[in-house]
């Protein structure tokens, strides 16, 4: 088969893979840093916060980009429920990518902890801590993190299903 694969615009592919790397490393860092008492924990925590702010900026670009550029259409022979699941999970991923950094920043804000962004500048915390609002946002941040892990796993499984079982161009369109 030599038919040409219709791929996502290069800017969408670049943003997709850059954010994939950021999100997977931030989720792993998040899971490690809430447990570890090792010397590197503090450095990892500060890197997690900095990359979180970077990801928040990237997701804005990505969202605008996605609104402006049409994505390749899904294969015509896909069952309707799979089509709906694909679109629904993509929307959910966007919602999570936007809410993760917001909830993370707000939990730091209400713990009255400034967030240093790559040691370039600090995002202010509240002038006095509010432990109940901190609790709201840490619970939200944790819940969203678990949801994001589940959704990323589903997303990866779906991509592999398209490539190896359906043998269509869905994965290739993002490569």
């Amino acid at each position, binding site marked *: 088969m030599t038919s040409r694969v219709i791929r996502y615009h290069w800017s969408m592919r670049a943003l997709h893979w850059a954010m994939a790397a950021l999100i997977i490393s931030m989720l792993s860092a998040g899971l490690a840093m809430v447990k570890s*008492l*090792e010397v590197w924990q*503090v450095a990892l925590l500060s890197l997690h916060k900095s990359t979180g702010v970077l990801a928040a900026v990237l997701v804005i670009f990505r969202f605008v980009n996605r609104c402006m550029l049409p994505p390749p259409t899904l294969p015509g022979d896909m069952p309707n429920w799979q089509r709906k699941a694909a679109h629904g999970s993509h929307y959910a991923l966007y919602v999570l990518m936007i809410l993760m950094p917001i909830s993370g920043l707000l939990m730091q804000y209400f713990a009255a902890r400034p967030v240093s962004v790559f040691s370039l500048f600090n995002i*202010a*915390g509240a002038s006095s*801590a509010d*432990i109940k609002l901190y609790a709201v946002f840490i619970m939200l941040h944790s819940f969203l993190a678990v949801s994001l892990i589940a959704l990323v796993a589903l997303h990866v499984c779906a991509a592999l299903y398209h490539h190896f079982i359906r043998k269509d161009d869905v994965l290739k369109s993002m490569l």
Partner: protein
Amino acid sequence: MTQYLSALLLLISAPVLAQAPTVTAQQFVDLQQGDSDYPGFRRAHAKGMCVSGQFISNGNLHSYSTAAVFEAGITPFVGRVSIAGNNPYAPDLKAPVRSFALSFNADNTQQWRVAMNTPPVMAVSNPHDFYQQIMAIKAGPKAIAEFFAAHPESEDFRVWKSSYMPTNSFAHETYHSINAFYLVNENKEHQAVRWSMKPANVTPVSVERFTGENALFNELQQRLANAPVVFDWEFTLAAPEDDENNPAKSWPNTRQKIVAGQVVIEQWQAQTGGPCDDINFDPLVLPSGIQATKDPILRARSAAYAESYRRRAIESLTGQVKEGRDD
């Protein structure tokens, strides 16, 4: 043959066995929490009282650190005095350690939290050994003696402990940073320091009130009703041969000392609902001009404090907090 083999195996595994097992933040806080069930309270140093006042800087540290706190002038603080232990209603005079924590918030992008205790050094130099030490303390005097015998690095701590006499007032104790930090100036020069807050106005204790389970807290309240409580904030500068990453090793007394100013406690508030209650006094919340050393215990404090804070935050939100008996 099997004998040789097992000897060889033992030899290979010895370095692994000799190392203290790795502990997580959750295990650490579980141990501190123990069987005590006081939702909403800190897991360590649960019994405390909010204090507030100001730091009057004399500007002496300004050339060592760019932190705004050290410019000549006044910075207000919210603080907390507390005693060691997981019980917010424990008798004051039985606690082996007393503490003083401060939160400076001159600017919302530059917070500084300070958490100090009465001992000047730790008995051990990493969090995993510290976990074993707390286990030994819980097990009793024999276990502690064995622990200290197995940890010669605890010598400086034991020397301090044998000479330390608890006073009858929070105002008469000296509080130590224990861990070292770097002061960083405009030229990015790093100076390792430890600090202590030393009583500056020692006045007699009002003896008739110095009784009961809340002896220390009552004494401080009584004292503050009459006059502010003042400490000199003294910094000790490390020499190149001092190891700033080892919290168990004290530095020679001959090291240069600089008094940065006076910390003045003016008021107190009950901790439940007080201004210090929602604060996590994580000593790694630092402003620019002050940096953490690689001291493994200092680094571990942040994650352990965070776990305690998460637990009590969620308990506060979900209304599990029992009605305070906060005096």
